[in-house]
């Protein structure tokens, strides 16, 4: 236990990198997912087809393969990318594909009546999206959005496999140095658990809050 305490500064730095990757990757996923979802719904047919293939491919691949691919691929042009950036981009792509489906599903499952009414009172498509579609659809998207966030947070642990000094990487080097695995793993597990659990609890709370706002 005292070994873990003496590693506290490093573990803290690792946790910061984990959280940094998580936050940036969730932001990236949200942007990709929003554009991707709208593209899947309203894009012209060729764009829709391309997006569908991309989304299905990304969702069909393990996150680890995405991370390795993004990390090694710049080598094709004799360039390199640092591990945290590669992992963040890969997780952004992964989360973006999942959120595209969430956005598509959230908007696509709205009752037609609402959309027809909005059309009937003469709103333009931009106004319809902004005033009617998004306010109705966003509450439905929040719970799966938070779940994707938890998956992204857990996914950042895979960045340690390409050498990013995140929480798990530091814990693993602590194990390698002190030959005392249990305290380090328990500490890392407790930290991951508290962040993921808080995030998923937040998701459940939002879900409860919006449950009765279905029209």
């Amino acid at each position, binding site marked *: 236990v005292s070994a873990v305490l003496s590693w506290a500064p490093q573990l803290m730095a690792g946790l910061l990198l984990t959280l940094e990757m998580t936050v940036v990757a969730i932001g990236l996923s949200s942007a990709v997912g929003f554009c991707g979802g709208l593209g899947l719904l309203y894009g012209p047919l060729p764009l829709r087809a391309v997006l569908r293939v991309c989304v299905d491919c990304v969702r*069909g691949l393990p996150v680890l*393969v995405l991370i*390795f691919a993004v990390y090694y691929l710049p080598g094709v042009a004799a360039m390199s990318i640092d591990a945290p950036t590669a992992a963040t981009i890969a997780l952004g792509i992964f989360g973006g594909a999942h959120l595209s489906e969430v956005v598509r599903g959230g908007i696509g499952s709205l009752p037609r009546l609402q959309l027809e009414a909005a059309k009937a009172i003469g709103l333009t498509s931009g106004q319809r999206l902004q005033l009617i579609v998004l306010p109705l659809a966003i509450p439905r998207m929040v719970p799966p959005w938070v779940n994707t966030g*938890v998956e992204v947070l857990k996914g950042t642990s895979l960045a340690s*496999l390409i050498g990013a000094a995140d929480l798990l990487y530091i814990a693993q080097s602590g194990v390698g140095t002190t030959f005392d695995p249990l305290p380090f793993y328990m500490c890392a597990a407790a930290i991951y658990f508290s962040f993921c659990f808080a995030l998923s609890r937040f998701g459940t709370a939002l879900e409860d809050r919006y449950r009765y706002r279905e029209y």
Partner: protein
Amino acid sequence: VTYVFNWPIVFTYLPAFIGGLGIGLGIALAALVLGSIIGLALASVATDWPALFMRPVRIYVEVIRNVPLLLWAYFAFYGLPRLGVRSLDNYSSFVAALSLYAGAYLTEVFRSGLASIPARYREAAKSLGLTASQRLLIVTLPLMFRIVLPSLSNTFISLFKDTSIAAALAVPEVTFTAQRVNIDTFRIIEAWSIASVIYLGVGYFLANLLRLLERRTRMVR
């Protein structure tokens, strides 16, 4: 700088990729079976036992689900020997970690499956005079399996994808093989596209196979 494709040299690794695919499927299947046993046991505890027993089940499910699988894999491989479990190699410790993971997800799946069996089926079984274990074996479980089959097949596909993490313990499955090819030959695009094709192909094949199975066992309600 121009990248030169060299498929022939990458194709010499095809046996390794195929072997890796077999390992991945084997691990996923083992974890599905062990995870189903855990999930079934815990789901019936959560459904039929007094509320007092709900709490440990919930704690297990939440703790497993909210910690990355890679950490569980490390824990099983490097941590368990410290607790006196010395008989696990890298394969079996990853199977152990993945089974615990699958068990947590499947507990939820089976619990909601059990909850969605209409009470009248159980009442009918009771009024026929079946014993508790007969009710479970010939009424509740067969009904529940049909209800949860779609979630079960999704779980199997995502377990197969999760086997990629076994690469961290040097289990020579598909991702580990791709990484080895990448490092040995520097044929980056070839290595990762073969791995991607394998994962996507298997996922697609399994999804269709399992959908067929679902259609054949669907319950008429």
